[in-house]
């Protein structure tokens, strides 16, 4: 979003955008919880090892972390938009 159009957003538009972004974050959390369940408990019965570690321990820890990073990147780089917060940003 260009800086000019950001500055010209009304309060209502900004709050609406922020509300939408909060919902995206909530949905991201739900997605991560599902991944956490499947990656850990879901694979605990599999007899697969990676670097001496059972698959569930790898997917349920490092895997969850990587997915969380991916989610944060999607949220912050794609879904979240820059807005003018009001006040003087350089005060």
């Amino acid at each position, binding site marked *: 979003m260009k800086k000019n159009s950001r500055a010209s957003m*009304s*309060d*209502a538009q*900004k*709050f609406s955008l*922020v*509300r939408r*972004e*909060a919902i*995206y*974050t*909530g949905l*991201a*959390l739900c997605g*991560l*919880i599902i991944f*956490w369940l499947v990656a*850990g*408990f879901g694979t*605990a019965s599999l007899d697969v090892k990676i*670097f*001496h*570690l*059972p698959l*569930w*321990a790898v997917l*349920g*820890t*490092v895997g*969850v*972390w990587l997915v*969380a*990073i991916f*989610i*944060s*990147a999607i*949220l*912050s*780089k794609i879904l*979240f*938009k*820059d*807005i003018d*917060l*009001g*006040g003087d*940003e350089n*005060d």
Partner: protein
Amino acid sequence: MTEGNLSALAPLIFFMAFMVVISIYVRNKQAGKNFVSNYFIGNRQLGGFVLAMTTVATYSSVSSFVGGPGMAFQVGFGWVYMAVVQVTAIFLVLGIFGKRVALLARKLNAVTVVDIIRARFQSDFLAAVAAFVIVLFFGGTMTAQFVGGAKLFAAVTGYSYEAGLILFGLVVVIYTSIGGFRAVALTDTLCALIMMIGIVLLLHYVLKAGGGYDNIMATIEINHPELFEPFSFGNMPWTIYFTQWLLVGICTIALPQSVVRGISYKNTHGLHQAMLIGTVVVGFMNIGINFTGILAHGVLTGNAADYGGVDNIIPTTIVKAMPPELVGLAIIGPLAASISTISGLLIVASSAIIKDVYLHYAEKNSLSVTPSRVKILSMTTTAVIGAIVFVIALTPPSLIWLINMFAFGGLETAFFWTLLLGLFWKGANKSGAMLSMIGGTIIYCATQAAGFKIFNLHQITIGITCSLILFLIGSYFGKKSDEATLKIFFP
């Protein structure tokens, strides 16, 4: 002071001195600017990297570096699997509250979370209760940090508990009092970096002392098969997983010390950066230190009880695995976790008293308060709160981990629905918030005191559920918020 390892003390002294230098520098640089805004929220000037680091450092306490990995040593990968839920903490709080709180703070000229609660629910009484809850539970958390840090210091350096408390406890109170929020944010950043370096350093020496990764893992596979099972042969029941998702995952979005970060950043570009950086860092720390706790089996051959309990696993590992000249560097990491949490809480607790109670009272009663008086009172209050907690920590209460979790749960019960529903639901009103915050907190504390649990779940589940029910009842029967207020919060 008892005879100890001087080489272990030197890096710590240097580190703490550097913290004080930072705070003096910040204070000089901020001279002449709006004191209240500067002292309590750093004049809304935090960039993305510092915002991420200060949020992570305040969130990560000494428990994360001592008690947590000690439990991982005992329980195994189930503990790491449970602890990793904390990767949600940063993107959740900044994603849900970050921009809304920033927009509102600028509109209302708010400096604290309580300012926003007061404006939303138009209640001085609720604001006073919120300030009281903050000071009360922060006191508990800070005491746990002081005690945990000083015990670690004593175990690793050989100097006394009191010496540790004086060295890092007093210094953190001094630098927070002098520099305010901006100094806290910068020192937190340094602390977070030191924590990461400390983890890498400890991991390296644990692997070395244990004869390498393959050797350690082969030993654990033979001697401790339970560590490879998610329920750890009954040591990690599902109830722990469930309550930890609430306690250190989802509900942390409402911790006042995290939400206030939303008031303090410069622009949304920084916020977006912080969400990503914070998630990377918090995951690295959590997985890194807890995995190191498990690998400590390569260094310590007995059970946790043989070393005096889970809290002694990391200190003992540091002493046994690391060269004496590096021990001082290694304990800076966990101590940094401790002091960064204390400083973050201290400045918010101080703002609750000065900004939320005293200045509001003065303004309401048209009392004139000179800038120099505000400055002296703010710094004195910060120092006095720190000193009180310091004195309590001199006679350390037992069960640090439980005190910390109790305080976490109390804050979450009090603020979760008040902030979430208050900022995102027009139907939320004063009666609902009041019932939720007061009733929920009392019920939570009462169930904790009575040891009452449902399905053996932590009392946060009762607190947060009752708090929601009370909020909905109050909002249904209470008077609706006035139009002018709703126009500000839901334009």
